[in-house]
């Protein structure tokens, strides 16, 4: 049977009208009133869950420069963080900072150069009261209710960079230009970003979801980066934070950082 354009449109129009009517009649509830029920999803049994994810950093476990670099590049390769090779466009999720930069108010004039320059791993602190979330005009950055991870919705971010002005840790980076040509080996399992959006560490939510620890933790020397549930009294992070001397970056600002730095480490404990 041949059909001309006019006929086709007629039939298509009528059938779509009928179709609409049919769904409306057969629907068990009105979606405008009750909303759409979320699809039933079985929770993944291997997913790592917590009430408050936190990290303890023990720099004494990182013996060499290479140890630190391993964690940094594990994160950056996993998450397709581009390397532009210049400071102006730089994007980083986790990096090495000198003691005097990580803890700017802690130095004293008699401190040895060696201590001032001591390396520290720094990353997003996944604050309990994150200023970046407070200032975001679109809720593109938000604190996940179930476990306190501060996350980013790259598809909603308008690139106003208010969060970058608000973060007291310089943890956020902006895609000042197209990042994709600067990703050396793209990890197809993780999305790349577009220019014009802000990004940062996510405590590896995508890995936690499948039962893996964050990439930096996995790549770190044993006990260098300890990851766990701070709300759980029996977790390792909680025990360390309770019994050992730890400091947090700029805790005086009331942000409630969830990354703790263990001072003294093994040798002096």
């Amino acid at each position, binding site marked *: 049977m041949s059909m001309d354009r006019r006929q086709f449109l007629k039939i298509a129009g009528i059938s779509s009208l009928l179709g609409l009517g049919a769904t409306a009649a057969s629907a068990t509830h009105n979606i405008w009133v009750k909303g759409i029920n979320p699809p039933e999803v079985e929770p993944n049994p291997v997913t790592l869950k917590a009430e408050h994810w936190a990290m303890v950093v023990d720099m004494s476990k990182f013996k060499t420069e290479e140890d630190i670099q391993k964690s940094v590049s594990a994160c950056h390769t996993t998450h397709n963080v581009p390397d532009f090779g210049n400071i102006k*466009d730089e*994007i*980083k999720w986790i990096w090495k900072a000198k003691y005097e930069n990580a803890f700017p108010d802690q130095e004293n004039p008699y401190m040895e150069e060696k201590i001032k320059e001591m390396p520290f791993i720094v990353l997003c602190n996944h604050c309990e009261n994150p200023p970046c979330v407070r200032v975001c005009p679109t809720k593109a950055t938000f604190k996940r209710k179930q476990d306190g991870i501060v996350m980013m919705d790259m598809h909603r971010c308008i690139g106003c960079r*208010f969060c970058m*002005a*608000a973060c007291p840790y310089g943890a956020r980076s902006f895609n000042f230009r197209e990042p994709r040509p600067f990703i050396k080996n793209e990890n197809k399992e993780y999305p790349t970003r577009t220019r014009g959006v802000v990004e940062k560490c996510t405590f590896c939510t995508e890995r936690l979801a499948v039962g893996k620890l964050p990439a930096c933790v996995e790549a770190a020397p044993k006990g260098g980066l300890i990851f766990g549930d701070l709300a759980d009294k029996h977790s390792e992070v909680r025990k360390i934070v309770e019994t050992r001397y730890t400091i947090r970056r700029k805790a005086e600002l*009331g942000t409630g950082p969830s990354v703790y730095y263990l001072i003294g480490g093994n040798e002096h404990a």
Partner: protein
Amino acid sequence: MLEKALVGSKKYWAWVLFLGALAMSGVYYYLQQFNYGLGITGLSRDVSWGLYIGQFTFLVGVAASAVMLVIPHYLHDYKKFSKIVILGEFLAIAAVIMCILFIFVDMGQPMRITNVILHPTPNSVLFWDSMVLTGYLVLNLMIGWVTLSADRKGVPPPKWIKPFIYISVPWAVSIHTVTAFLYAGLPGRHFWLSAVMAARFLASAFAGGPALLILLALIVRKLTKFDPGKEQIQTLGVIVTYAMIANIFLLGLEFFTAFYSNIPGHMESFKYLYAGLDGHRELVPLMWVSSVFAAVSLIMLLIPKIRRNEVTLSLACIMLFISLWIDKGFGLVIGGFVPNMLNQVRTYWPTRQESIIALGVWAIGFLVLTFLYKIAVSVRERNIGIEIDH
């Protein structure tokens, strides 16, 4: 009334063409930025706001300053302002349009701008800022248009507009207060974390805006048959003087708190701006130009003889405007980012493309201002000799 902007002398069209060309070159470079990303600017992860946001902040002040004509005229019944209050309202319209454009060109994902409305977030100051700015634009468009239309017909403006005029007074204060809150509520940015930030913003706005208005009024008088009036300009001069005193006083308070407390975080940005930090002195010459211009212009304004002479008054206004433009349109924003959150000095300087885009936005703003003033002046020229009671 719009048709009045479409008739004019050769000079008028040459000016419009000139601004149009500037605007187009801005658009040209903006398209480059749109395709390449904000990497075309001098911004970085350390100094993530720069010239654009600085201009935005400064122009919110210019917009708010219309209230310095509205208050004397409508609240204190200062009749002399009745013929120039429209110049303030139209300046506010042009300024808010520039503000919106500067926010737009600063965005990494401008196509997603509606997300601010689609996902309203009351805890974000930026959300409120976009609300109050839009509201202020609507208010001024409405008030300006209704009062001018009435003037054209030679009748007093309708009564229903009065409540909107009264609302516009606190509204003007709100736009600059909310803009100050963008900065003044961020933990860890000591330079901005100041309770007098909003007050300082308002003071500098009420000095800079009317100073620009004096210059515009003098230009209007020179180019058209409409005379905004000698006394009106003098009253504006007094307003500028008082506001500038308040502004310098408030800046002094910032210096006192930072340096008497001797807290490093509070002093470092000031040091970077006015003396240099860790060998970086990029902004020092500019900030000193700003300081010297501020001092000299204030002294000139304070001496009645100099203030009453329109030539020296306009000179003082030019210096004052440049001073505040540097201080608020540049130093204030950059200073907050240096040193960065890891106490490192990472500097910023706008690129050529970025500067031309900014110039283009100013050109668009002045194009709007030119059209609006042309309309207002045409109505005024027709009404010369007729006094209309508002």
